[in-house]
């Protein structure tokens, strides 16, 4: 299955050679690409480099699970040209890891970070989760900071309806933090990481300096074009967005005869504005004042409530404002 997926992936890339000839970032993720064998990874990356041009100094990220990162694997990834590693640590607590049904242990997470550093990755990002039952978040965050990673993603535990966690939560077996506690944890994260020198540049993302910012993800937030390959992948050329079938078998079959694209939308100017607004309220870049139709009184009210700051003709959310990233667009719109 993996081989036919890889084959399909290469076919799909071929479809876009002319439309997307050059790339400033490459991101291998969404799932567990570290599951690929060394050989599979190698031939995939070789195909990518042969087919399209990747700019010098481009950010090349791969997502990995801690238990897949051995010293050798880390070295191989370096050799394949990856220069940024995003490690799915989630937690430094074994009880919580098993609750989250992760295969790795806290020790493996620490080892993975060490291996990555030894292999020469100077751009490392750790994924962490807060709001877990009985979690000592402050301690976990301190442990993460101690590794001095360039980048941290701190996600609030989100339980989606239909998942096993949701069932556990409904039956009362899983007690997740209250809204109030989550707010406190969010603000605590902001202040601890600020003290440690990390900028809170997106709702869930922190960077120790501009050079460590996730260039790839920032393209999404800045509304720049991106090409997504694989099942469920979305792509955007600045005006039109399209997406692939979510089914892996369908994806593979469709590429044998044509295109896996199952949906497409060309955005109106107003839709583009709404997206800029929605994305802008999630990041430190904020949004251009001209994209906001709310009047000065509304802005003043939000400013005095400490939710946004207005400067240089931009409206920028504060950390507290980011807590309302889904709501502010409605108010500003």
């Amino acid at each position, binding site marked *: 299955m993996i081989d036919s997926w890889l084959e399909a992936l290469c076919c799909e890339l071929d479809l876009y050679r002319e439309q997307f000839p050059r790339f400033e970032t490459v991101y291998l993720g969404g799932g567990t690409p570290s599951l690929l064998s060394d050989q599979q990874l190698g031939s995939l990356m070789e195909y990518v480099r042969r087919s399209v041009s990747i700019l010098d100094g481009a950010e090349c990220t791969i997502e990995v699970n801690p238990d897949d990162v051995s010293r050798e694997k880390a070295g191989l990834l370096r050799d394949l040209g990856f220069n940024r590693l995003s490690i799915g640590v989630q937690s430094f607590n074994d009880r919580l890891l098993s609750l989250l049904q992760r295969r790795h242990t806290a020790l493996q997470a620490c080892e993975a970070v060490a291996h990555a550093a030894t292999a020469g990755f100077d751009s490392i990002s750790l994924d962490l989760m807060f709001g877990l039952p009985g979690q000592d978040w402050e301690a976990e965050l301190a442990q993460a900071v101690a590794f001095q990673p360039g980048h941290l993603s701190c*996600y*609030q535990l*989100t339980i989606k309806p239909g998942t096993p966690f949701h069932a556990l939560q409904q039956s009362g077996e899983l007690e997740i933090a209250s*809204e*109030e506690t*989550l*707010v406190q944890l*969010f603000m605590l994260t902001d202040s601890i990481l600020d003290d440690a020198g990390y900028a809170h540049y997106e*709702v*869930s993302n922190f960077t120790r300096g501009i050079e460590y910012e996730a260039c790839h*993800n920032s393209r*999404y*937030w800045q509304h720049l074009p*991106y090409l*997504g390959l694989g099942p*469920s*992948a*979305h*792509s*955007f050329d600045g005006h039109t*967005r399209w*997406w692939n079938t979510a089914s892996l078998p369908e994806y593979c079959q469709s590429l044998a005869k044509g295109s896996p694209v199952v949906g497409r*939308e060309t955005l109106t100017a107003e*839709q583009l504005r*709404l*997206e800029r*607004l*929605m*994305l802008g309220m*999630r990041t430190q870049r904020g949004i251009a004042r001209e994209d906001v139709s709310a009047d000065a009184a509304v802005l003043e*009210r939000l400013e005095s*409530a400490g*939710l946004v700051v207005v400067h240089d003709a931009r409206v920028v959310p504060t950390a507290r404002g*980011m*807590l*309302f*990233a*889904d*709501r502010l*667009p*409605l*108010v500003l*719109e």
Partner: protein
Amino acid sequence: MHHIRNFSIIAHIDHGKSTLADRLIQSSGLVSDRDFHNQLLDSMDLEQERGITIKSQTIALPYTGSDGQEYVLNLIDTPGHVDFSYEVSRALASCEGVLLLVDAAQGVEAQTLANLYAAMEHDLTIIPVINKIDLPAADIERVKEEIDAELGLDSDEALLCSAKDGIGIEEVFEAVIERLPPPIGDVAAPLQALIFDANYDQFRGTVVSCRVFNGSLRAGDTIRFMSNQATYRVEEVGVFQPKLEKRQVLSAGEVGYIIAGIKTVSDTRVGDTITLDDNPAAKVVGDFKEPKSMVFSSVYPIAADDYPGLVDALEKYKLNDAALNYQKDSSAALGQGFRCGFLGLLHLEIVQERMEREHNQAIIMTAPSVQYKFILKDGSELTIENPQYYPDPMAIETAFEPYVRINIIIPERYMGAVMKLCTDRRGSNSRFNYPSPKRIEINFDMPLAEIIYDFYDRLKSITQGYGSFDYEYMDHRPGDLVKIEIMVNHEKVDALSFISHRENARPRALQYCERLKEEIPRQMFKIIIQGSIGGSVIARSTINPFRKDVTAKCYGGDISRKRKLLEKQKKGKDRMKMVGNVQIPQKAFVAILKSEKD
């Protein structure tokens, strides 16, 4: 005249009235099967959805009897709700008989009985019909016993049919011919025609439905409405089949329509008698009552710049609804609008829904009120229908509120619960009747204001749908009234204020504050809702702000979905009214209707 029969079908809700009507129309061959739209009589969408008849329609069915004679059977449809009881009575007055429909599985129910009484009041011949005999749960013997015991009719005369499957339809036709008396009247006498309905047709103007009792009428005649002496020249007469079918003449005994250059439905009055201008009748048919607005509410456009659209929509709507009254009104919170008078709450809801659906108007209706009267200390009198205009309490000598006599028929077992509901709602002067062994008829004098607060819903709920309910205006009586102001974040919202009896003021204000708390979505700041009398707060609720509203992850595949959600929320926002800095959804304004919860 001997070959005419005029009749209605009456039934408890869902006992198959519309289905039987459809089947009769279909069997008469008037409408081709291809054109046949199920339940033709209930033609408005809203009626089909609610399964009730709002605007009645009438149809003249041609039928050849087993005696070989040609008959015209006029089926007169009746609206089925308490708000329209006068319209029902005028339709029944136009008949000689009724088919009383009873569900073969459900048996006799509250409304069967109430309908029977209505038919008896008009001295109509009653044919019991047991419908739905095809149902597995049908129990014809039991239903027959109920017809004997509870209705006091002869169950041997009951017809058996299944309107759905077309069983027993011929027998229904034959019984109508044989058992119902033909109309009697004098063609040579001065014209007397009773108006029992009127509809607006955009091409033909007002189409008046009437039953001719005496005399005759043809195009070219000048008619006179006996209630207001207005005269019109008749352009056309005819019958409903169901389309308008032109005729030379409408004579005594017949049912049909008149088109006479009448501009709006409001120029006609259901219950009025039409006569000829040059040879007027001495007497009217039956008793004529002006439609009386019982419930009042203000209507505002959600977006202030939609006001011209609202004016236009109301004018168009009014063409076809004589019972709706309106005049200009304004509110500090909601801007320019109209104060409307309705026959009752159902009427109000129908107007609201039809304004939205048929006239595409997004509107806000304020909490319904009744008409209050005051004698002020300076001796002057004041009548208000809008709590906004409540006089200075210091200036009031006596306040009066409208009272109605309510009539409830229920199975005995619900008596305790219904008595409690009625006394809780300030009912007094109770009287009881036992119309049949297991039924009880209860009368109370009750303030109308108590009825508009979800009384009927409560009654239905505690009697599991077995309660029939009717009311009639009596008079205005002194009452200890207060006006309750509602404040949202300390800002008075005039459109939410209401008048209550002092005794109930606090619980009702509390309920209202709680209901508003449920209806107004959480916002980014705290919202305080207060109810006050003359500046002193008597009830309060708080809507806590949400502390956060953010999704943890937003990457390439999430953007479209999130934007679509935003677009949807934006639409929802358009249906809210900003009051100060609080967004209040449309439905919050009538939240007071649903003041009590089970």
